[in-house]
């Protein structure tokens, strides 16, 4: 996994540390030539994946970790966010802002929605050893 193109960032399981992952991803993406606008997209997507890993995957456990890997191969920046949870029970629905504003739905579901919208690829994987991976990718050309 940790090959010559791959950086791994290992974060405490606490809100706020997603900012460090954002900084790592932004610096990596800038180095390989992504434009500032796409880097903002990457930052938001990785932040949301980290926040979900803390809250849903690791359920706020203080001793858990969130692991982010960043790699660039064949023109594609790949980011994976790992937590120690068991993954998704059901695929989340896109939030419906009209229903939310009418108090018919709670204001949730924006994280996965934004990752889907901002990245070129998004994939959820439950791994054998009680770990969960959210994998996303963005092509450089775009």
């Amino acid at each position: 996994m940790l090959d010559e193109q791959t950086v791994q960032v290992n974060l405490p399981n606490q809100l706020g540390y997603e900012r460090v992952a954002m900084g790592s991803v932004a610096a990596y993406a800038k180095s390989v030539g992504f434009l500032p606008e796409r880097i903002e997209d990457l930052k938001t997507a990785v932040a949301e994946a980290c926040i979900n890993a803390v809250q849903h995957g690791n359920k706020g456990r203080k001793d858990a970790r969130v692991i982010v890997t960043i790699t660039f191969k064949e023109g594609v920046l790949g980011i994976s966010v790992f937590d120690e949870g068991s993954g998704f029970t059901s695929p989340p629905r896109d939030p419906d802002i009209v229903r939310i504003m009418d108090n018919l739905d709670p204001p949730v579901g924006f994280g996965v929605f934004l990752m889907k919208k901002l990245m070129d690829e998004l994939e959820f994987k439950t791994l054998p050893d009680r770990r969960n991976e959210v994998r996303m990718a963005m092509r450089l050309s775009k």
Partner: protein
Amino acid sequence: MQQRPNEITLQKHGEVTLLDIRGDITAFSESFLNDAYRNSNTQGARKLILKFEDSAYINSGGIAVLIQVLVQTKRNNQQVGIAGLSEHFKKVFHMVGITKFAAIHPSIDDALKAMS
């Protein structure tokens, strides 16, 4: 990792109340934003401008907090404008659909002009 507290300044511009919000908008901003909204409300605001820093980090938790405020403004028949967002968060607010309920303006002046 603590988030530095938000700072919010209230200003009256005729019938428009401006909430000048400094700092990042996340789940931690909930009480700040709600308090600020409550204050603006007791001042009987009919029209609100929410002004953000263009360097602010806004995440899904902050979006949820904002929407909770917008739910209240809708219930109270208040008109809301947004100013100061970076291009990225203009796009994000558009994606999420916030722009259906609050118009985004290029600057405070533009917002004041459009809403007065």
